[in-house]
């Protein structure tokens, strides 16, 4: 299907699951770093566990039997067996083998306590499930028993061991009161006194008493926490409310932390320590029960840093929408599903198939499976998923579109047995709406489809997270990363193709397959598997958290692990502020705008914020409250007072946890980088590169964690101290450079600091060559580094030469790391990747920068601008460069202000409702010349319509509203009177406007031949030239023919390119991808060609 990130905003809530037995929590999973967007009770829990009772999602037995009947289709069952995983060896079958597997997903369910493993216990308990793959490619489901949910509270003074059991009873009573309906035999299992210390604030005492409260089910943690935080009446102590510790840790994460398991690592269970499940409830080949204490978790080193051969399914669906509507599961059938399955580490998919509704001609190398009704298509896909048993499911926008669509469609068709797509045999897939809101990524509405045991990896989500692009359509993403355009078939054509013949459906299938193939290629090309698994390993969270949650869970996971080692506990502190508390941010030194034609050396702080935290031992546990500063009377040599006025103790009193985490991360990164240099094997390299990247990102996110006011454990004292040190360092560097590198100090020139950003300072040493600037840069970096506390280090990395500094955060320059050759052109803040700019702006800016910086030819850049403006005014501009695109997010009535694209969409709807853009589509338009006084929003027009009817564009609009600002930004520092020179010169005087072929007046105009030389009306015998131009025949003919010849070149290139994209020579090009840069050019070339040919024919006299 066409995917558009903005798609389906207003889709109805999934009513997909008929079963009321399911627990739907409307909770927005709100990752940290997040601003709470919704009010309500549910928000109270930032993260909460959801207890899914095994029986509740299960189908009834008879249903189960029916559902498990595989398709009767013989051909299909033959295929099913081919898709199967390798069969188990006898030692596995007889349980004599140690099971070693890479786990990819961990969740938990509530089930009856395992009597054999935990004798003497009964009632429901939480069972953790780990899903993974062995190195032979067998799927594993491991039920882990015996791990109990718990949290801590600080022990009230005076409470002794004798008071514990009374406290236990009181708590148990209160729990029972609030959960009257529950039939759980016991809520609070145990209360123990433990010796721990809070992570908050420096405390000289070694430890305090804490109560560890062990409950029977994970959800009870939240319940208990609520009671204790609100306050509880205790005998002899009165009403007490407690601060809870580590009460907001998800159960699965708690388990992983306590068992030393990190996301995506290898787990071993020795033979004899596990029991085969008596009745398999999953589709996994190896399904075992074991105690959590028997698990051996391997560090991802050596052999265990590898990846198991897991199965990655990439799929895509096509739906036949009704005319003028985007497909909706209530009305529109699923007509094709294409699937590619690839083993991790292999280049090519081993399963390639497409399931189609109605017959479809064969496709080479692809298994085409056709069905007569939609129900069979869906069920075949379900069987396919079950047999091929993918560990990771990828696709483009699958989470928001494809998966929910399939499930909602099956619901519409009343196929109750369809949503059995997870690994648990009898468990239905659940869909729910989620809102992911984060300061970093903005608010994203999404759907969460739970496929137990299978990791979903939606490439669209990944792209939106990891890359800043102007458009996230699959087409533009693949153009960006793979350098190829994707054929785009408008969804109105999809229905036509479906209703055609087996041939047209084949055409559609090929298209559908390509949409399934591109996500796989993106995954490979961008090394996502390696990078994300490494990120999970480094930060210790399950892989699925990385996409569904924010940054802070990663830091929290590391913090919890470290705290556990140090016997510290982390308080559950609610986000204190409204999110508006802020502190002074990073400093930016004033930019001295200009065009610098001498080398500018850049001094960078390497990992500035992590270094500051390490250098000054900034941590929760080293912070001294102002009160304590007075009370404790700490000697001044063992504390640091930060520029923002906070006090932290030095490492000799208490080493900080955050600095320790950072040290480990940075050391590990150094090691990974060193290993990367040594490594030869491409897979090993991929792992190591992913790891060093993950380590870098993790180190940098620690600072943000402390500053997120509504986060898990905000501590503004730390973050404001970090930035204040940062500011100090930048100023300090500036001061040292300008003091030391002077003519008085024996240098040739006085150094000047032209600009400084968060962690870098740009210095003009005044020397002429890159080499001497590099030498001085190195000298300065070394000298200044010596004045900082370790590990803060100023590094010299690069020289900009020449350097165009426009304003703060906006600059461009050639980037040199060695004196012989520049590396690249580097720009910041200039490149106009904004969506609402037309391509012309981007091209113009790029070309100008190229000419100014690389060719060092300002006059030619000026000339280029003038030529471009002249082309624009003379109506010679390629229309595709002028197209502006905006997303249509709601209909016209909902917009308060009239906008160009919405108005156009309305007008197009009146012309032809079937091809007009719908909500969710992107609307491309150009600004046309309209009657005087027309509003800007009235001047938008469909580019195709413009092409077909020769409608003149409005060059003034483009000149004033699109290109003038970016151009003046660049040229102001370079030229005097840039505006007059560029925008008002003689090149702007000659204007040509095409005559529209459809305007009213033209209907009355009579067409007459004009002389090809001078445009005089000619008549009589003269068909080509007037009598005055007769002598210039050769010259004028040459002009005509050159024009024709240029168009022919273009025509050929454009149309053969489209043949290439569509992958067929013998079929006409259908593509209507308006995202493709050559779409309009192709159309225009065709039209221009026809006109030019007519002109040319007039010479044949």
């Amino acid at each position: 299907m066409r995917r558009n990130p903005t798609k389906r905003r207003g889709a109805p809530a999934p009513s997909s699951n008929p079963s009321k037995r399911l627990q739907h929590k409307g909770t927005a999973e709100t990752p940290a770093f997040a601003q709470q967007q919704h009010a309500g009770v549910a928000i109270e829990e930032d993260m909460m566990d959801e207890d899914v009772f095994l029986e509740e999602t299960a189908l009834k037995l008879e249903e189960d039997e029916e559902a498990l009947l595989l398709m009767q289709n013989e051909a299909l069952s033959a295929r099913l067996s081919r898709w199967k995983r390798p069969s188990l060896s006898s030692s596995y079958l007889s349980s004599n083998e140690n099971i070693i597997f890479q786990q990819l997903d961990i969740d938990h369910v509530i089930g009856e306590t395992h009597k054999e493993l935990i004798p003497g216990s009964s009632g429901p308990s939480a069972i953790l499930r780990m899903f993974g793959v062995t190195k032979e490619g067998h799927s594993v489901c491991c039920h882990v028993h015996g791990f109990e949910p718990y949290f801590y509270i600080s022990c009230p003074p005076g409470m002794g061991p004798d008071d514990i059991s009374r406290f236990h009873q009181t708590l148990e009573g209160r729990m029972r009161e609030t959960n009257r309906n529950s039939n759980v035999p016991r809520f609070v299992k145990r209360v123990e006194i433990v010796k721990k210390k809070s992570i908050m604030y420096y405390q000289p005492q070694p430890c305090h008493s804490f109560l560890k409260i062990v409950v029977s089910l994970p959800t009870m943690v939240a319940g208990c926490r609520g009671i204790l935080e609100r306050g509880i009446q205790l005998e002899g102590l009165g009403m007490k409310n407690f601060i809870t510790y580590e009460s907001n840790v998800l159960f699965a994460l708690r388990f992983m932390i306590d068992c030393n398991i990190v996301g995506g690592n290898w787990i071993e269970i020795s033979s004899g320590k596990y029991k085969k499940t008596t009745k398999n409830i999953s589709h996994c080949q190896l399904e075992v029960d074991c105690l959590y204490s028997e698990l051996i978790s391997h560090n991802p080193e050596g052999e265990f840093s590898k990846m198991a051969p897991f199965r990655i399914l990439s799929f895509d669906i096509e739906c036949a929408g009704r005319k003028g509507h985007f497909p909706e599961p209530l009305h529109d059938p699923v007509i094709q599903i294409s699937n590619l399955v690839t083993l991790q580490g292999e280049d090519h998919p081993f399963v390639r198939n497409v399931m189609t509704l109605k017959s479809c001609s064969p496709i080479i190398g692809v298994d085409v499976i056709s069905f007569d009704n939609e129900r069979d298509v869906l069920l075949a896909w379900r069987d396919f998923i079950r047999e091929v048993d993918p560990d990771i499911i990828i696709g483009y926008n699958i989470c928001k579109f494809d998966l929910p669509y399939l499930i909602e469609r099956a619901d519409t068709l009343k196929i109750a047995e369809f949503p059995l797509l997870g690994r648990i045999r009898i468990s239905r897939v659940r869909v729910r709406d989620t809102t992911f809101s984060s300061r970093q990524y903005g608010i994203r509405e999404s759907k969460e489809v739970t496929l137990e045991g299978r990791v979903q990896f939606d490439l669209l989500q990944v792209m939106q997270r990891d890359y800043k692009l102007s458009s996230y359509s699959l087409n533009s993403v693949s153009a960006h990363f793979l350098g190829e355009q994707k054929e785009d078939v408008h969804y109105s054509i999809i229905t036509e193709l479906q209703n055609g013949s087996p041939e047209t459906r084949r055409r559609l299938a090929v298209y559908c397959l390509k949409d399934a193939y591109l996500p796989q290629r993106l995954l490979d090309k961008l090394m996502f598997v390696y990078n994300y698994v490494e990120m999970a390993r480094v930060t210790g969270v399950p892989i699925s958290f990385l996409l569904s949650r924010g940054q802070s869970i990663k830091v929290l996971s590391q913090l919890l692990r470290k705290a556990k080692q140090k016997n510290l506990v982390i308080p559950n502190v609610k986000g204190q502020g409204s999110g508006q508390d802020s502190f002074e941010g990073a400093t930016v030194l004033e930019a001295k705008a200009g065009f610098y034609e001498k080398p500018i050396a850049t001094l960078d702080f390497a990992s500035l914020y992590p270094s500051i935290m390490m250098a000054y031992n900034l941590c929760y546990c080293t912070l001294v409250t102002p009160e304590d500063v007075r009370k404790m009377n700490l000697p001044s040599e063992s504390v640091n007072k930060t520029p923002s006025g906070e006090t932290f103790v030095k490492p000799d009193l208490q080493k900080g946890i955050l600095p320790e985490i950072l040290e480990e991360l940075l050391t590990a990164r150094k090691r990974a980088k060193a290993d990367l240099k040594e490594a030869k094997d491409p897979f090993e390299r991929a792992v190591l590169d992913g790891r060093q990247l993950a380590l870098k990102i993790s180190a940098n996110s620690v600072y943000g964690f402390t500053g997120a006011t509504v986060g898990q454990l905000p501590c503004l004292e730390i973050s404001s101290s970090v930035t204040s040190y940062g500011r100090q360092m930048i100023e300090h560097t500036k001061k040292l450079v300008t003091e030391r590198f002077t003519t008085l100090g024996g240098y040739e020139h006085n150094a000047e600091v032209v600009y400084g950003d968060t962690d870098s300072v740009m210095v003009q040493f005044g020397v002429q060559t890159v080499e001497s600037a590099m030498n001085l840069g190195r000298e300065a970096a070394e000298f200044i580094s010596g004045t900082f506390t370790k590990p803060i280090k100023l590094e010299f990395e690069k020289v900009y030469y020449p350097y165009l500094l426009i304003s703060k955060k906006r600059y461009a320059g050639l980037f040199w790391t060695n004196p012989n050759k520049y590396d690249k052109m580097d720009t910041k803040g200039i490149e106009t990747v904004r969506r609402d700019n037309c391509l012309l702006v981007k091209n113009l800016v790029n070309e100008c920068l190229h000419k100014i910086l690389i060719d060092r030819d300002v006059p030619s850049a000026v000339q280029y601008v003038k030529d471009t403006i002249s082309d624009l005014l003379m109506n010679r501009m390629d229309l595709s460069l002028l197209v502006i695109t905006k997303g249509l997010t709601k209909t016209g009535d909902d917009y308060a202000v009239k906008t160009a694209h919405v108005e156009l969409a309305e007008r197009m709807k009146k012309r032809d409702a079937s091809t007009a853009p719908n909500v969710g589509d992107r609307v491309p338009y150009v600004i046309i010349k309209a009657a005087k006084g027309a509003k800007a929003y009235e001047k938008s027009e469909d580019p195709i319509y413009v092409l077909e009817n020769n409608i003149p564009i409005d060059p003034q609009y483009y000149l004033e509203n699109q290109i003038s600002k970016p151009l003046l930004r660049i040229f102001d520092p370079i030229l005097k009177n840039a505006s007059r020179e560029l925008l008002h010169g003689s090149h702007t005087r000659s204007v040509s406007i095409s005559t529209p072929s459809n305007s009213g007046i033209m209907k009355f105009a009579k067409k007459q031949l004009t002389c090809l030389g001078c445009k005089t009306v000619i008549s009589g015998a003269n068909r080509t030239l007037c009598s005055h131009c007769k002598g210039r025949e050769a010259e004028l003919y040459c002009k005509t023919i050159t024009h024709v010849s240029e168009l022919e070149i273009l025509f050929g290139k454009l149309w053969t390119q489209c043949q290439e994209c569509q992958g067929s020579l013998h079929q006409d090009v259908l593509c209507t991808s308006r995202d493709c840069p050559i779409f309009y050019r192709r159309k225009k070339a065709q039209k221009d060609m026809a006109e030019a040919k007519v002109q040319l024919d007039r010479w044949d006299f």
Partner: protein
Amino acid sequence: MDVDRKVIQRQQSTYRSMDEIFEIKNEKYRGQQYSQIYFTRLHHMRNLLYSLIPKWRPDLPVCTVLGLEEGKQCVLVGTIYKHMKLKPRILDEYSKERSVVPIVKPHNFMHPEDHLILEDESGRVKLSGNVLVPSVFVTGVILALLGKETTDSEFLVEDILEAGPPSQIERPVIGGEDKYVVFVSGLCVGSSTFNPLQFQLFVDHVTGYLGEVKEQCIESKIVRVVIAGNSIEIPKCVLTGQTVNSKDQSKLFEPIKELDISLTQLAVAMPVDIMPGTGDPANFSLPQQALNRCLFPGTSAYNTFFTCTNPHSFELDGVRFLGTSGQNIDDLEKYSDAKDKLEFMERTLRWSHLAPTTPNTLGCYPFTDRDPFFIENCPHIYFCGNQSEYSSRMLKGSEGQLVRLICIPRFCETGVAVVVNIGSLECHTLNFSTNLD
């Protein structure tokens, strides 16, 4: 001094132009795409190949790409598509960032990972095996392949059948005196390499103003001069640029006038064919249409002056000529590999197709109902203009076809014209040099 005043009569021969198939005339751009020319080409060539297959592999079934069955040997006919990694594409203009290092234009876009795909109306299949060498073939060639589908869904090729060379009409026996045709190409009047004296020497020589009687006797046997493209060079920027004052403008068209004068001298003496080439004021796409006569107001007055299409096909005394100004062969050189230019020429005959890379990498008119580049009859003389050096050899076909292959060098660089004896098909060069050392 007693001078022999005997008048030397120039030989004559009967000329029949066969350029009609290359003329576009009233065809129009009506939104047609390139799929149709491929479709026509496949249809036409397939009929031809189907008639040959019974002789080649009588025992095997002929399949379509869709009808392939794994492991079953069969014959497949379709259009070759060559997947090329380095092939320049118009989309590169839009690629992420403009590369800082200027791209050096390679003359050849081959890459070891290039592979071939066979396509028919029903689908595509990737070709494998050592029999079919990707470096030899190009997109657009139509072949019959013997092989079978492998487990990887590739087609393992075991043998290849090409359609040509096509059959040849019988070469007439030309009795009496020898007759010659002179070929010249790449005059490039107006370019920096153009040497007016050198060209004048050529004109004077073939028209008989140079040399003694014996030489004049030979020169009188030249029945025709064929100018195979790139006669004029007009700086491109002039025609597209925005600001050229009128004085300069007329100056820029001087080369055309200059050529007109020289051509007049030639046309006075004998028939002259002029073909358009890449640099000439003609359209770009093949078939290039004849240069407009209004460019040569002087020469056009003579009925011995013929403006022809490129490709150009004609008969002289029953001997068949076919040739181009070089674009077809130059394009093959960019996208495939051979030991010399003549081998490329041979291949086009073996494929029965003058320019298989059209429209893929070589521009052509989007024909809807025909493919004019299909070679129906094998020419006797097959020439190709604008090559770097002269080369020639005879090609002998399996059915006894005899073809003289000629690469005509660029005159402005080499001073070489090529003379062919239409009776014997023998071939030699004329070298003109103004270098007095």
